[in-house]
């Protein structure tokens, strides 16, 4: 697989490390409900098909990316930078 890093360009997946499901949202700090935290930490949709997932370009720029990838064909249809420098944050 090749992931097109917005910083470095297209690189083989072996340069990246997989973080996982990007659709999970960490509960707010003041939420103390055990179940909603366990849902966040342990429960996954695990779709067969398009999956939004976080990868880190750990072997190079270390940026964290949100990749949209089909879990059946492994085809990647989108890569976005995540974090303070991403389009969404700006």
């Amino acid at each position: 697989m090749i992931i097109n890093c917005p910083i470095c360009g297209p690189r083989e997946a072996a340069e990246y490390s997989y973080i996982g499901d990007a659709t999970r949202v960490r509960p707010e700090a003041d939420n103390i409900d055990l179940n909603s935290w366990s849902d966040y930490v342990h429960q996954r949709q695990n779709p067969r098909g398009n999956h939004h997932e976080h990868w880190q370009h750990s072997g190079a720029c270390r940026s964290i990316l949100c990749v949209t990838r089909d879990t059946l064909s492994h085809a990647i249809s989108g890569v976005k930078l995540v974090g303070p420098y991403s389009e969404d944050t700006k």
Partner: protein
Amino acid sequence: MSRYSAFSLFKNALSGHKNWKRAWRAPEPQKKYDVIIIGGGGHGLATAYYLAKEHGITNVAVLEKGGLGSGNIGRNTTIIRSNYMLGANTRFYEHSMKLWEGLSNDLNYNMMFSQRGLINLAHTPGQMDAFSRRGNAMLMEGVDAELIDNQEVCRRVPGLYCGQNTRFPILGGLCQPRAGTARHDAVAWGYARGADQYGVDIIEHCEVIGFIKDGDTVTGVKTNRGEIFAPKIGVSVAGNTSTVMKLAGIDKLPIESHVLQAFVSEPLKPFLNTVVTYGAGHLYISQSDKGGLVFGGDLDGYNSYAQRGNLPIFEHVAAAAVTMFPVLSRLRLLRNWGGIMDMSMDGSPIICKGPLPGLYLNAGWCYGGFKATPAAGWCFAYTIAKDQPHPLNADFTLDRFYTGHELDEGGSGPYPGHQ
């Protein structure tokens, strides 16, 4: 039904093998069963077999979307072991081991279960300590285990590099002498034939496309071959658990699907008489009766349903194999395949009633599904028949993540693939 034996082979040979019967029937689905098992893999078929044999429940259908045994039972590295550390796991896998030891005779189908032992190699004193803890735990649960030193490892595994001039010299290992390998396809076929003989309907090419519910209670399934009803429906589709459970309205589970690759080499005359795992490099090697060396590595490391993986694992498995066995450098890999693992969030399985009334779930097997086949079927059948778990699977609940009763054998937390 005819029994298999040397005599039956001889008799059939005389008639030019014209009289062999189908190993299992190919029935049309009925409208209603007492139990439906979704998934005609090893676990599903074993469940049906034990439902009939142990609990007298024979009005059972096993629904398989493709051909029988086409999932992970047919795409693994065939290793059987019960060398676990946490009590619940040790007891469960040892129960499985005991069933394996009688399985060929029980099913009248030779599984070719070859108990040639398994050695986990250790490279540091810390690893030896960890293996000591595991080996002691095994012995205390009545499982066989031996701690062996470098010399003994080398004696048992000719060809293994035992010197110091390598990145991770071998210090010793933990051996389970009763561990081994079995002919994986035969397991599916043996259980299928066994269940069929009790009257279980094994229905291939019957894909579940939806569940029929009465309120929350699941009462039947919609399939590409019509609706089928049953008061109890067991889901045993590791690799595709999330996909099937979504049809029942369960949107999330503590499971991710990952691909695990395996490799087989060209056939060699007997070379390796035990199973060996390389602690430093995510590699396990055994030799099949046919002569091929079977290699398994680490997960590719991303969610996948693709039953195939990528090059980095090829390269890594080969590097670990040559590092362990420099004499195998010129041996060639012949074939590669990938299986889809149900990676649970603590590395341990789920066999439980629920999560909906009428539904029962057997899932989350991570790398351990093949060796668990007999016990998983046995426990799942018990859970379905008695509507409560057997003590052996009582800890394998779905809600343990909410209550904090994880069974984290690897101690690596809710990160699938790091176990």
